[in-house]
Structures are given as structure tokens and as C-alpha cells.
């Protein structure tokens, strides 16, 4: 998943908006944004945070500065453990051409000590939005781990995986009624990238996405099964 190949694959698929959401880290976001410059592919700055409850929350921001500010909170909330490359693989930080810059030695696959409420509040305070990721999965899911979405949680949307056809989501999971539903690639490899959500909005920004998820102001999303 090196930056120029991500950009190229996005163009092949006709994707105009993608987000980089590494696990508990955002050190590769800027490289992909630089690689995508002039390509017609907009790249949102993001992260997939693992909360204290072991739920995955996708955070999206407008700028690299915002996501890096958020990353400081996340890094301070991770256990002081080092990655073991022979078990979990190497965690490289690369430049916009895909060249090696450094190795991230933190154990990024651990849970942060941040409760889900603190993640949503912290991201919101920095101007970002939060999406509960793959809630229909058995692991790392807000629904599996906490049973239902905590009352009053300011999520912009709830993401369902390919396991659940969008039209069946609230039948299988009545707890999701009333929440904006989205789908995403959740791609960990180039071959997993796909175009599965059409967003109608004025520009690729956090505020526009929030409107689109809620279907307000003429903005909307269309999900493809």
C-alpha cells in the first residue's frame, strides 16, 4: 500500500475521495496526500482508533495538522510496548514516492486507554468526525463489544461491512435504527480497494460529509451493495 499505487488504484476505480486511516497512527497520511496532488483524488486525513473498550472508531479530519494533533493524544494513551515485527509485521513510514523514511516502533495494534466517549469528544474538539467502524463484525466492533451504541454518542455515521447488505442492516441490528449508515472499503491491500459509496456534496470536507451522512442540505450518500 505505497502512496503512488494507492493513488493509481483510486483513479482506476474512479474514486474521487479516499481517506487514509491507519491503526492508531497517522504518520503516512501526508505522503499519500502529496502523492495524490493533481490526480483528482482527494485524500482525507484520518485514523482508525482502537478505544479502551476495544472498539474501532474511524476519525476523519480536514488537515494533516489536525490528525497529527489527535495522534499525540492517541500515542500518549497507548501502552508503552514495542512492535514485534516477526509477529505483527513491520510498521513503515514512507514518503510520497513510497521510499522508506523510518520504522514506527510503537505497538500500534493495542487498545488505547481512551473510552469511546473521549475519542469522540477529542476528535470533535479538533474539528474532526467519528464513524463507528464495521459494527456488524464479531471483533473490534462497538455493537459486539458494548451491545448497543451508547446514548448521546456524537457519531457522524455508523459503518457496516460487506457482511451486511445495507438494506438488511437495521433488520439484523435494530440498535442501528436512526443512525446514518455508510459503507467503506476498509482496504488493507490495493486489491481490496473499491468504490462502494457515492457522496453528493460540495467539497471533500468533514463538514460536507457530516451533512451528506445525515442527508441534509441536498447532500446525500448512496450505498452500493
Amino acid at each position, binding site marked *: 500500500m505505497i502512496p503512488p499505487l494507492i493513488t493509481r488504484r483510486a483513479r482506476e476505480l474512479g474514486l474521487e475521495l479516499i481517506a487514509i486511516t491507519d491503526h492508531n497512527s497517522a504518520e503516512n497520511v501526508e505522503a499519500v496526500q502529496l502523492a495524490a496532488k493533481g490526480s483528482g483524488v482527494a485524500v482525507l486525513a484520518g485514523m482508525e482508533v482502537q478505544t479502551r473498550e*476495544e472498539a474501532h472508531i474511524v476519525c476523519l479530519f480536514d488537515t494533516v495538522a489536525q490528525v497529527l494533533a489527535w495522534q499525540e493524544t492517541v500515542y500518549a494513551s497507548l501502552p508503552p510496548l514495542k512492535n514485534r515485527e516477526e509477529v505483527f509485521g513491520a510498521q513503515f513510514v514512507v514518503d510520497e514516492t513510497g521510499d522508506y523514511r523510518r520504522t514506527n516502533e510503537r505497538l500500534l495494534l493495542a487498545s488505547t486507554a481512551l473510552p*469511546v466517549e473521549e475519542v469522540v469528544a477529542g476528535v470533535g474538539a479538533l474539528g474532526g468526525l467519528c464513524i463507528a467502524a464495521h459494527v456488524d463484525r464479531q471483533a473490534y466492533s462497538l*455493537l*459486539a*463489544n*458494548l*451491545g*448497543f451504541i*451508547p446514548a448521546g454518542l456524537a457519531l457522524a455515521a455508523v459503518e457496516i461491512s460487506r457482511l451486511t447488505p445495507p438494506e438488511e442492516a437495521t433488520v439484523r441490528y435494530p440498535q442501528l435504527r436512526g443512525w446514518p449508515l455508510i459503507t467503506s472499503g476498509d482496504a488493507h491491500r490495493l486489491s481490496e480497494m473499491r468504490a462502494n459509496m457515492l457522496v453528493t456534496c460540495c467539497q471533500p470536507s468533514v463538514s460536507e460529509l457530516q451533512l451528506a451522512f445525515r442527508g441534509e442540505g441536498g447532500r446525500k450518500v448512496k450505498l452500493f451493495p
Partner: protein
Amino acid sequence: MIVHDVIAALGLEVAAGADHLDNELTGGYASDLLSCVMAGAKAGNVWVTLQAHTNVIAVAELLGLGCVIITEGVRPGEETLSRANEKGVPTLLSKESTFAVVGKLWQLGIRSPK
């Protein structure tokens, strides 16, 4: 066996729900996935978990559980504890692991729900 017997035998700290320590215990259940607890635990059970989210109290109330034991020295936040007091859910704390707590409960004669 009532909640108070378990507190005494395991040396647990009562963090909330102190008015309901005479709840009769019908069995035990251990999981950190609340979705599993909702499907598997039964009324009057003691539930052992290291989750400390407010949803824990909501699930305990929903199922009418006898008490919740939060393990590994995890301290629930104020919101969780005030909700537990409000709903009358005995919320007990242990520094030990879930494995150790469940072992001791088993020795006291507490079994899985039928």
C-alpha cells in the same frame, strides 16, 4: 448465596449499588463482549468482566443480574458508578484477573447458567 457472601470471600471493593448486596445469586457468566452477555447471562447471575463502560450497567439492569465484578484493577468512571447506584446494580472491583475471580467463584459453588 448472596452478593455479600461473594464480597466477603473474594475481598472485593464495593464501588456502587451497596443497597442491593442481599441479591440472591443464581449462577455466573464471564465475557467482555456485551453482545454475548446479553445473549448468555441470566437473571440473578454474577457477571465478571474488565469492561467498565456505562453500557455494562445498562446490560446488568436489562438482564436483572445479581452483581457485576470488574477485574484487573480497572476503575469505572463517575458516570458508570452513578448509573449503577441509580439502577441498584452492585458493582464490585477486584485487582485480580477474570480467570482468578471466576476460579474463586467456582470454588464457592457458583456455576454457569443452565
